[in-house]
């Protein structure tokens, strides 16, 4: 299979490369253009063979077998396979008892599907700020947003780090409301021995092919702790005539990939540890924070900049970030912003047309807010001061490539003079002042 390995191997890094001029200023790139392509997902001959075998089975059995195998892996009580992550979140909310007009508390920093799934459930998303260290939902902010009409908290395990589930669980219990996980980034992520997806009353998870655990295209899965919740979701689909069915083609690919998921988890963890050690040495960068007892799945890797550590504390942090971003990309590191605006400030939540004519926002006008980015200062601070690596930690990202990424960060961090010069030359604006982007 041509997809098992990259076209050309990367040579091991040469320590002398770090002394070269920056690529943006005419020096050699740490990762040359011809060697930058990252293939994902990994597709093996076993995957092909398993899809062939699946052809000879009833489609319903292929999908059910996949759902049961993955449910057992996660340790959730019940599982409902769906066509997408969004539909899985919709079903998780419905199963948890969310009804039209209810309020569901979601973080302002997430993929837009989290909030759109609330609208799909004919409920109203109520946005709260994030924790400044983990970038997941801030339990104190969630507590402040609870009203008599709040039916659920929906934290997101952002980028693969489980949210503060113990605090949120206690908050939910105190108010008699449900805890619904958005585990779309968090395949195999854990708190203690419990896997994301099994931590709440219900959970939704994307399984699209760019996730750590990919299906053959698009897919999702909803998990439920109790049978009653599962049955509520299933009967909702039947009652409303909704087809959220998963294709057997996608499911068969997933069953095959599931066997290798622990192996890929190990590779990502190794790559993240290696890169984290290198970033800490630079002073300018720190890797994602992982609380004790949490296992980060690193679907994305959000690193934080500390301009003061290299004498740049007189410059706006967002400008330093933009300059560093330019320099890293020139070296061949595909760093990204991944979001630049709090979700409530995106057009669908400014217009609030919903299903049409303002439904379901019209069911609960008291829950609706006209938000400005400044309403979410922690999110803005995070967007100002962080960059993201997406596929770059995953298998088949090879050892040599991670070493070279680490070198690129080292090389850029050594040149605060170049960063300062770029900031002075450019007219960088804060992230949310540009067109809102999701990815």
């Amino acid at each position: 299979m041509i997809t098992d390995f990259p076209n050309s191997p990367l040579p091991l890094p040469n320590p002398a490369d770090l002394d070269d001029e920056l690529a943006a200023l005419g020096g050699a790139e740490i990762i040359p253009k011809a060697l930058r392509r990252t293939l994902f997902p990994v597709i093996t001959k076993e995957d092909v063979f398993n899809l062939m075998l699946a052809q000879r089975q009833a489609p319903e059995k292929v999908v059910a077998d996949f759902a049961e195998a993955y449910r057992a892996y996660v340790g959730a009580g019940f599982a409902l396979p769906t066509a997408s992550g969004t539909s899985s979140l919709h079903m998780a909310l419905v199963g948890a008892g969310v009804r039209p007009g209810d309020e569901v508390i979601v973080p302002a920093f997430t993929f837009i599907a989290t909030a759109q799934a609330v609208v799909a459930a004919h409920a109203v998303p109520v946005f709260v700020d994030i924790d400044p260290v983990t970038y997941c939902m801030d339990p104190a902010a969630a507590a402040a947003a609870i009203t008599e009409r709040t039916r659920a908290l929906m934290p997101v395990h952002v980028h693969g780090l489980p949210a503060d589930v113990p605090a949120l669980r206690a908050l939910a219990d105190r108010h008699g409301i449900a805890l619904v996980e958005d585990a779309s980034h968090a395949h195999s992520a854990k708190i203690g021995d419990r896997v994301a997806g099994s931590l709440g009353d219900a959970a939704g998870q994307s399984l699209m092919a760019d996730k750590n655990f990919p299906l053959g295209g698009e897919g999702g899965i909803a998990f439920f702790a109790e049978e009653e919740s599962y049955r509520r979701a299933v009967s909702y689909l039947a009652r409303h005539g909704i087809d959220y069915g998963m294709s057997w083609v996608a499911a068969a690919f997933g069953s095959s990939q599931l066997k290798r998921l622990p192996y890929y988890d190990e590779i990502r963890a190794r790559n993240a540890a290696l890169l984290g050690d290198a970033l800490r040495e630079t002073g300018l960068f720190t890797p994602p924070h992982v609380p004790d007892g949490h296992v980060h799945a690193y679907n994305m890797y959000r690193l934080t900049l500390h301009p003061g550590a290299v004498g740049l504390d007189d410059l706006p942090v967002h400008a330093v970030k933009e300059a560093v971003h330019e320099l890293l990309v020139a070296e061949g590191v595909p760093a990204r912003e991944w979001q630049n605006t709090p979700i409530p400030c995106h057009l669908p939540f400014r217009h609030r047309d919903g299903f049409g004519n303002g439904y379901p926002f019209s069911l609960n006008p008291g829950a609706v807010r006209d938000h400005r980015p400044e309403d979410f200062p922690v999110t803005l601070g995070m967007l100002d001061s962080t960059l993201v690596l997406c596929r770059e930690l995953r298998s088949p990202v090879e050892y040599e490539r991670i070493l070279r990424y680490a070198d690129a960060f080292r090389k850029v961090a050594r040149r605060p003079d170049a960063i300062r010069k770029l900031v002075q030359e450019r007219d960088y604006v804060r992230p949310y002042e540009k067109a809102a982007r999701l990815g």
Partner: protein
Amino acid sequence: MELFDTATVLTRVLTSGVVMSIEKSDRELPGLERLLTKKTRRSKAVLLNSRTGAIHAALAGQGIGHGDSVALAEPDAETAAFLAWLGVRVTSYDEPAAYDYLALDPANADRLGELAAGATAPALVVDLTGLGFGPAAAVLTDDPKLWARAERLKIFGAYDLRTMWTQEEADADLVPGVQFNYRLSPLVAACVRMALTQAAQPQTAQPQTAQPRLAATSGANQS
């Protein structure tokens, strides 16, 4: 479709390494779009992951949403339930329909062009689930605005890879409200394309014993 043919298609796509719908180098989804527009003689296609996703897109594409009324042929119970979930009322069974509907299966897939020719609504919903690869559907239209709105409904406001994920929108009429992920998988699209291609080739088609059983209907008989 013969198992061997499905196996060949699945292997070809897996070997390409591109199984994700938002991959720039995906060729399967555009390939199915081209085939459907050619056969139905409509200028635009929206591929979706289910029959209900396509009905939603056909209506949302015309700006029809919660609280609005439409004309349709009398829908079956399942479709009526889905329309009620959308908040769309059917108030006329006689006027020109908001969308036409046809469901394909191996017995009638060779007649797609003929069936589509009899459809007159602004949107034609084609249910491809009966071809056997899982839920799949398409909306065909000649209305560029309907197409643009439907694309934004199915993929969080993004409508092409150049502007992907940008939520800024020059045309306020096209700003989506609720958004879903109704995207179709390239592997499914590749299998559907093969089934439709073979159905149109008598020399490789299944024995012609099955009688065509469906004609284009106006939003009715959609089970």
